[in-house]
């Protein structure tokens, strides 16, 4: 039974993730005054890459990099419950907690970084370095906000945090939410924090050396990852969801916000984005934390 549920979760994340990517490309296309690709174009792209006749590999660690990334994404997904106040679609979340998820979120990219390093492409290594440099700055405001809500909810269990919100935390503690939102924009790889794979700077960063099915795997995991992150964010700040409709609605609103923000701003440099994240969102989040837990 649990296996079936896990499979369903995976399928939902995969489908919805690609759907969101399609919407993303269409919406940005409209921002850019053009028609945009078919809705499922990202899905076509990933299948196309799976169907490539060959892919260049640089040894077994390179081969395993994207696989670790994919496994990380799926594992992360399974430890995030989709809905609150029910055990349906809660996956393995009762066996883990928010700390586990926070670390699992990084596991995949780090595993892939090993593959990137093995590939020997200097642009890849530079992309990874950018990613890791940005990571801690990105995580700080998010951690502060998450710690605050863990303390407020009195639990590190995601479904309990979701259930604990009578008014959603985003409204009750807006400063925390804003701080975390900045991080979230970066986590989703949107401008102005999209320094990792910036094509005009580092070729295409970590993905420079991946071809064919490796790239396909990276694209698929990114769809799953995106959905997992959105669900996590909804659970933590937007009061969770009780049905698929609510979940899709909330995640989509969040997603729409993130991509609109992304298409209006240019890219920071890596040091600039670190500087910004360590100053503005962190300060906001710290103030939010102090206000939220003062009593």
């Amino acid at each position, binding site marked *: 039974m649990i296996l079936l549920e896990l499979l369903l979760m995976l399928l939902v994340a995969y489908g919805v993730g690609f759907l969101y990517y399609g919407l993303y490309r269409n919406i940005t296309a409209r921002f850019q005054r053009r028609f945009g*690709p078919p809705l499922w174009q990202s899905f076509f792209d990933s299948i196309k890459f799976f169907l490539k006749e060959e892919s260049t590999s640089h040894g077994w660690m390179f081969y395993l990099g994207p696989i670790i990334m994919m496994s990380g994404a799926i594992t992360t997904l399974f430890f995030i419950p989709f809905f609150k106040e029910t055990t349906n679609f809660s996956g393995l979340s009762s066996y883990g907690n928010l700390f586990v998820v926070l670390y699992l979120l990084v596991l995949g990219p780090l595993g892939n970084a090993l593959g990137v390093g093995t590939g020997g492409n200097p642009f890849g290594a530079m992309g990874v370095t950018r990613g890791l440099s940005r990571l801690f700055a990105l995580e700080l405001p998010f951690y502060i906000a998450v710690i605050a809500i863990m303390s407020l909810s009195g639990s590190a269990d995601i479904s309990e945090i979701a259930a604990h919100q009578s008014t959603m935390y985003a409204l009750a503690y807006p400063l925390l939410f804003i701080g975390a939102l900045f991080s979230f924009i970066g986590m989703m790889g949107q401008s102005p924090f999209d320094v990792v794979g910036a094509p005009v700077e580092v070729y*295409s960063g970590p993905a420079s050396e991946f071809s*064919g099915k490796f790239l396909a795997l990276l694209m698929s995991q990114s769809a799953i990852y995106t959905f997992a992150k959105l669900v996590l964010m909804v659970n933590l700040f937007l009061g969770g969801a009780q049905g698929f409709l609510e979940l899709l609605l909330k995640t989509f609103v969040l997603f729409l916000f993130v991509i609109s923000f992304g298409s209006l701003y240019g890219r920071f440099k890596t040091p600039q984005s670190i500087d910004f994240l360590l100053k503005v969102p962190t300060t906001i989040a710290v103030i939010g934390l102090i206000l939220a837990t003062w009593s």
Partner: protein
Amino acid sequence: MEEGFLLEQKTLEGDLNSETSHQSSVDFLMNWFRKRSIFVLAYGTGCGAIEMPPTFTSRYDAERLGIRGAATPRQADVIIVSGYCSYKTLRRIIRTYEQMSNPKYVLALGSCTVNGGMYWDSYNTIKKLEDYLPVDMYVNGCMPRPESILEGFIELQKEIGAGKASSWQKYEENHEFYRKNQEAVLGEKVEPSYEADWYLYEGGL
């Protein structure tokens, strides 16, 4: 206005699907995905590159046909040789082409790739691209308009869909021929470091 545009889109897509061929359903599906998603390498090799931005941006918007840019050869399906090709660039194009994954396609832009074009008597450009790389589709003109580039893409997509675009197989089979021609203009010592049996590699996971 918008109706007209949607009409055009419909026509183009209809054109894309017009090719009927006798393939097994697996092949058909495979080729369908391949033709619906084309990643074009970001490499402006010659002056035709100036018409690439219009093709890929809002006015002509190639993305509506599933055509988009890719930063590295590892991710690309199509390399556009946009116009004249000096020896120095030819070497980079060959290296880049060989780094792309099969199946891969070459779209040659402009008269210069066909027969030297304006630069037929130039000492530093090649005159006939297909001696050095297998070309799937020539788009003629100096320079080709975005419409003709799109037209070329659609023709290419049709061929891919029908499973006929097989220049990469040609390159594998006639590798020695191409290598000989390449060496003739680039000189013995500029041979890219791959060995000749690079394409005969079998197996792998």
